[in-house]
């Protein structure tokens, strides 16, 4: 059973990392989680980003967060990528599989996946 003792162990491990986290957030991935996003499948998309970013060792530079309705409900699930000094990139009609591609190509290697952006999708 996932016990509270195990949680305590996580806490002890994380204590040292808390300082590190504050310097992070060069890249922000924001997933639309309003009614429209949720109904269109945003929950597994968000979870895929959280998993891939953390398991892929990108947590130091990428933060994944949630937002409300972006105003383009027909294109949900929508994911926006904000990077300091660069123009915002919007990905539309996302799926967990597409999320994996975005993590690998865009977040890891800096290549925007244009086929998932509104003009192409």
């Amino acid at each position, binding site marked *: *059973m*996932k016990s*509270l003792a*195990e*949680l*305590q162990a*996580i*806490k002890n*491990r*994380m*204590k040292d990392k*808390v300082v590190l*986290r504050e310097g992070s957030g060069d890249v922000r991935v924001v997933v639309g*989680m*309003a*009614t*429209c996003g*949720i*109904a269109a499948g945003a*929950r*597994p998309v*968000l*979870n895929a980003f*959280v998993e891939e970013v*953390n398991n892929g060792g990108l*947590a130091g530079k990428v933060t*994944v*967060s*949630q937002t*409300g*309705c*972006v*105003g383009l*409900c027909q294109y949900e699930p929508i994911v926006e990528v904000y990077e300091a000094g660069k123009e915002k990139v919007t990905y539309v009609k996302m799926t967990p599989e597409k999320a994996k591609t975005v993590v690998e190509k865009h977040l890891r290697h800096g290549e925007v996946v244009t086929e998932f952006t509104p003009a192409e999708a």
Partner: protein
Amino acid sequence: MKEISLNILDIAENSVKAKASLTEIYVDELGDKLTLTIKDDGCGMDEQTVKSVIDPFYTTRKTRKVGLGIPLLKLACEQTGGKMSITSQIGVGTTVTAVFFKNHIDFTPLGDVTSSIVTLIQGHPETDFLFRHTTENGCVELDTREVRTVLEDVPLDTYEVICWIRDNLGEQYEAIN
């Protein structure tokens, strides 16, 4: 919505937006009946507003003039022969209750509640959630206030914590299934 768990995620977001410090989510299954209760200690609404949230063309949002969260929940439970109710008081909070009948052909499956709870915590690590799913076989429960007491200043959206919560709920579900 394909699963009631998605309605849960959606409606609980309203509580967070209403600045709730604690959002309680209860799923009670007894026989054919499933009762969902989402209770918060947020800003609450006056009587007029409570009436208007059932209207799909009411929303607090500015980006467009449609708010479908509550209407979709209402539809989901009413199509099984159930009922939805909202009670609210300004400065006290809001409680949304929806009753579903599971044997009705139009009953939407409950789906992955664990995923919804994890998503809520990941998105709002600064607020607390109490989740309790009671079935005839037993009960699954998570209180982020307890988790927070152990974690002290480690944020709830730390990936390892999120994984712990997901696995903890998963194991509790295994035990009652």
